[in-house]
């Protein structure tokens, strides 16, 4: 199929349709919106990491002439003890509510406690001092070890561990346990001639999108209220806010603004429900924005983790058994990506005997949110480091070792399904033949290589394509565009319709103008929404054929359509798409195609990254000197943006491996809540990021597309970690490889 097929637009490097607005400053992001009569909201945040709220008194604030509205947890109509008692309240909804406005306990420093609205931003911020809160501070629980200790203070006194062999009898900070098995792990280790076993840990990190959360809302009594916000999923914002405020979906309209980065962090709600409460109470439109400090302290970061990996193998490199114990920090409320972490940890390997046990642990840190391939970077970091250690131990090239055990079509995954056609072996071969892997290394330079896996998802997408009388048209989709997906939609539709991409204007429609779309996440948009675009375009083609048939007085079967022109097989007649549109009113009205799908068959995307680092032996400072990202895209619709996903994921992973981490005081206060001391990579920190696009088509997509957005952040942690270990001649087990840690290793060596 795809590889044989010749494309006209797919695979070209067209100019993105939303580009002009973005290079000129015209594009409107979350905080760029204003409404007539708009006032500003501000949030009072907890000064404690763990405390009971003894009293919360807003009377002084309400009395202030500056203050137009005040909001607290009590303003969530549907989330109350009555509902909880009646069992009609999902615990997840209660937790969402408490994470947005604390109920009777604060579980992390910076957690929202109350909110006010005033005429100016400064007035709102100043009015926060008029809210009186009395706290009873409790001991903060800041690490996995502290949380699982026998005498650990409990964050949620009634929380029982789910998934234990015997139902839990005592409450605990362990929210859930998960176990996955394949084959006979003991037999597997018995067969082994060599065993590698080591424990690893990774820090709490943040997605680090440059645009802070922001929203502008207007509550409307005689329906629909409007929410404007930067989000990866405006339909899910609508659902969450509706649940929290007891509204029907039809009473809410959510408009997805341009979004300044998400990476998973903009898949939930923080400000939106609060702003709507304030708008309802004040009768005015309300704008709320987070400061960068708020973003770090109170939006969802990614889990810190502790992992123990044990691998057994024959001296010829055949891996006989792999075992993992994985702990993930969930933050203040249960729900870390421990599940996907367990499911992905060993998926790059076709091994008979596997055993994985995972734990979801609550700590007094912000509730984690998704971050690019949630759960996979942490667990696969540990697994890939151990695999590289095994390669060194048996003196085998790390690529050869992986090729010998590589997951392929038919490999039985630990979580159930067998893999279909996948591109891991192709990526490994490409790495082996790469100029980078063949190049030699200088002094103090080390090289690391790692593989990575992410499932990718499909799911629900809805698309409408409307053609205009002059043959131009619009594509209404519902997937917020976080990385240039509108360009891909335009190209896929243009490919099917056989016209220039520029003739079609792709629009991310609000919740009222297109049917439900799942959140942009799971690397699903170009795959799933792309499938909907193709289906809608194909239905447009069918209509174009029947319209032409009507004009020629033949049957649609006698009409062939290609390259934007309908041809009468029974004669010489030809009609272009534009000509057919121009006559639409005489042949049955205007032309439009829709598709509402639930896409299946999202093909997994595997990647292999190669990293060279130079370590300063006197200071422990690590510089990445060369980096290559190789990944299976199935079929690259727009190669530039596919490369961009590889490069962006690689650099986020490099940051995770080298300098990024939440630094906490003993009191549980994050001490580096800003871009000055939360050190994301800079242009000057990096070499060019070389890319190799591997294309092993996904047979479930008409053009062969696989999602590419997430896999790229999985390999860098171990690629960098291994490179540092090689450079200093010491094992690396803890991220980030910050200079003090690396220097300590260097000094402990001599």
């Amino acid at each position, binding site marked *: 199929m795809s590889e044989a097929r010749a494309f006209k637009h797919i695979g070209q490097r067209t100019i993105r349709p939303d580009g002009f607005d973005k290079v000129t400053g015209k594009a409107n992001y979350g905080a760029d919106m204003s409404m007539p009569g708009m006032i500003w909201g501000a949030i009072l945040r907890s000064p404690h990491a763990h405390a009971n709220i003894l009293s919360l008194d807003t009377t002084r604030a309400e009395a202030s002439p500056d203050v137009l509205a005040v909001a607290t947890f009590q303003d969530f109509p549907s989330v109350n003890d009555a509902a909880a008692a009646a069992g009609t309240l999902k615990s997840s909804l209660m937790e969402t509510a408490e994470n947005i406005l604390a109920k009777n306990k604060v579980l992390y420093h910076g957690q929202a406690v109350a909110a006010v609205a005033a005429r100016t931003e*400064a007035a709102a911020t100043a009015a926060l001092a008029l809210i009186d809160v009395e706290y009873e501070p409790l001991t903060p629980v800041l690490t996995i070890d502290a949380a699982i200790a026998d005498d650990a203070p409990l964050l949620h006194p009634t929380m029982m561990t789910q998934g234990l062999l015997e139902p839990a009898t005592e409450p605990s900070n362990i929210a859930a346990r998960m176990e996955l098995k394949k084959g006979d792990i003991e037999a597997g280790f018995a067969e082994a001639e060599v065993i590698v076993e080591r424990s690893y840990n990774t820090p709490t990190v943040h997605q680090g999108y440059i645009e802070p959360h922001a929203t502008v809302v207007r509550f409307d009594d005689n329906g629909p209220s409007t929410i404007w916000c930067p989000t990866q999923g405006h339909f899910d914002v609508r659902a969450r806010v509706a649940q929290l405020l007891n509204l029907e979906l039809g009473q809410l309209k959510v408009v997805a603004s341009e979004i300044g980065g998400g990476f998973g962090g903009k898949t939930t709600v923080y400000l939106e429900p609060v702003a709507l409460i304030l708008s309802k109470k004040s009768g005015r439109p309300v704008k709320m924005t987070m400061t960068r400090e708020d973003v770090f302290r109170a939006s969802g970061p990614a889990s810190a983790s502790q992992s123990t990996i044990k691998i057994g193998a024959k001296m010829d490199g055949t891996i006989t058994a792999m075992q993992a114990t994985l702990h993930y920090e969930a933050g203040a409320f249960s729900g870390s990506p421990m599940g996907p972490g367990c499911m992905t940890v060993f998926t790059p390997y076709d091994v008979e005997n596997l055993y994985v046990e995972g734990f979801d642990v609550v700590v007094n840190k912000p509730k984690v949110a998704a971050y690019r391939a949630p759960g996979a970077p942490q667990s696969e970091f540990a697994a890939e480091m151990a695999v590289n250690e095994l390669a060194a131990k048996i003196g085998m090239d790390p690529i050869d070792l992986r090729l010998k055990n590589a997951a392929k079509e038919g490999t039985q995954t630990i979580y159930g399904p067998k893999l279909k056609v996948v591109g891991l072996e192709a990526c490994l071969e490409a790495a082996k033949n790469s100029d980078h892997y063949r190049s030699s290394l200088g002094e103090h330079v080390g090289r690391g290589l790692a593989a990575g896996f992410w499932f990718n998802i499909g799911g629900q997408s809805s698309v409408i394509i409307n053609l205009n009388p002059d043959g131009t048209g619009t594509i209404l989709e519902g997937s917020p565009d976080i990385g240039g997906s509108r360009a891909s939609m335009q190209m896929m539709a243009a490919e099917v319709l056989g016209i220039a991409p520029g003739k079609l204007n792709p629009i991310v429609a609000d919740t009222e103008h297109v049917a439900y779309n799942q959140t942009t996440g799971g690397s699903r948009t170009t795959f799933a929404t792309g499938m909907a675009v193709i289906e809608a375009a194909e239905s447009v083609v069918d209509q174009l054929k029947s319209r032409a048939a009507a004009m020629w007085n033949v049957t649609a079967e006698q009409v062939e359509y290609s390259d934007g022109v309908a041809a009468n097989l029974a004669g010489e007649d030809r009609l272009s798409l534009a000509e057919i549109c121009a006559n639409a009113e005489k042949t049955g009205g205007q032309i439009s195609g829709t598709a509402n799908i639930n896409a299946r068959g999202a093909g997994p995307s595997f990647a292999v990254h190669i990293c060279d680092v130079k370590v300063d032996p*006197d*200071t422990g*400072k690590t510089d990445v000197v060369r980096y290559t990202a190789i990944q299976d895209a199935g079929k690259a619709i727009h190669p530039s943006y596919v490369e961009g996903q590889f490069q962006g994921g690689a650099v986020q992973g490099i940051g995770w491996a080298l300098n990024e981490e939440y630094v906490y005081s003993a009191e549980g206060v994050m001490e580096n809540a800003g871009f*000055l001391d939360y*050190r994301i990579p800079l242009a000057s*920190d990096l070499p060019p990021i070389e890319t190799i696009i591997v294309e092993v088509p996904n047979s479930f997509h008409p053009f062969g597309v696989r999602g590419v957005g997430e896999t790229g952040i999985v390999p860098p942690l171990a690629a960098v970690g291994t490179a540092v270990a090689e450079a200093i001649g010491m094992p690396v087990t803890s991220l980030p490889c910050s*200079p003090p840690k690396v220097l300590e290793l260097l000094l402990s060596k001599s």
Partner: protein
Amino acid sequence: MAALTYHAPTTLDEAISLIANASLPAKVMSGGTDLIIQMQRMLQTDRLIVDVKKIPEMTAATLDEGGLKLGPALCCAKLTRRQDIKALYPGLVEAAYLIGSTQVQGRASVGGNLCNASPAADTIPALIANGAICLVEGTNGRRRVPVEAFVTGVGQNCLEPGEMLASLEIPQPLPRTQDAYLRFIPRTEMDIAVAGAAVSLTLDEDGICTAAKVAIGAVAPTAIVVPDAATALIGSRLDETALTAAAAAASDAANPISDRRGTVAFRRHVVGVLTRRAATLAAERVGALR
């Protein structure tokens, strides 16, 4: 709500009388890169801001046989473009260049960096190594204070109410003298120094060190002079022994803390490494002179 009063006087006298007669807590602002952020954290307090960038001599930089007379409010971007100044004081200009991003360079000044008195301030060790003097003007006249005495603690300086830093005087270096400033940061840019070292060296024709001054930063509440490091270098050809002794002296003089930017052990070790490297670089620069 707190109110801010802003004045941008055009003469020094005007500025001094403004801060001397202020009924509000008064702050002198040059680049504002520290002050504006600090003000956002002090929402509740009214204050007076005196912007001194409109005072010509505050943003001037003149070189003569006496040395460099530097307007404290001159932004680093303009200072670092001055090749004539860079030729004489490469280390000081490097230090100014290291303050923040290009954007911050467009605002931040050496005087502001000094008055803000952060332990990690990049220009302070370089100013000290060059024997810089602060010209302080106030209602009670003027006084001259060496930079090492100007800074009195973390965020503290010796300015009395009604006084301001009017000028920085950096003496003409001796013949065959060059300086260097190096700092350690985890990234390649943007960060605050985890440790810093400035060295000024004079070498005779035979390459023997006849004079030296070493100052280190970010490893104590204030930048500190390290006489033992200088002593170790003077009389030597900057051989391994001398450099090792100087590095050890700097590490011993350091009295650092552990924080989000580095540990005590790390800072102690690295400040020695930087001292050795800065001394070597300064010596290379003398060698390159003719």
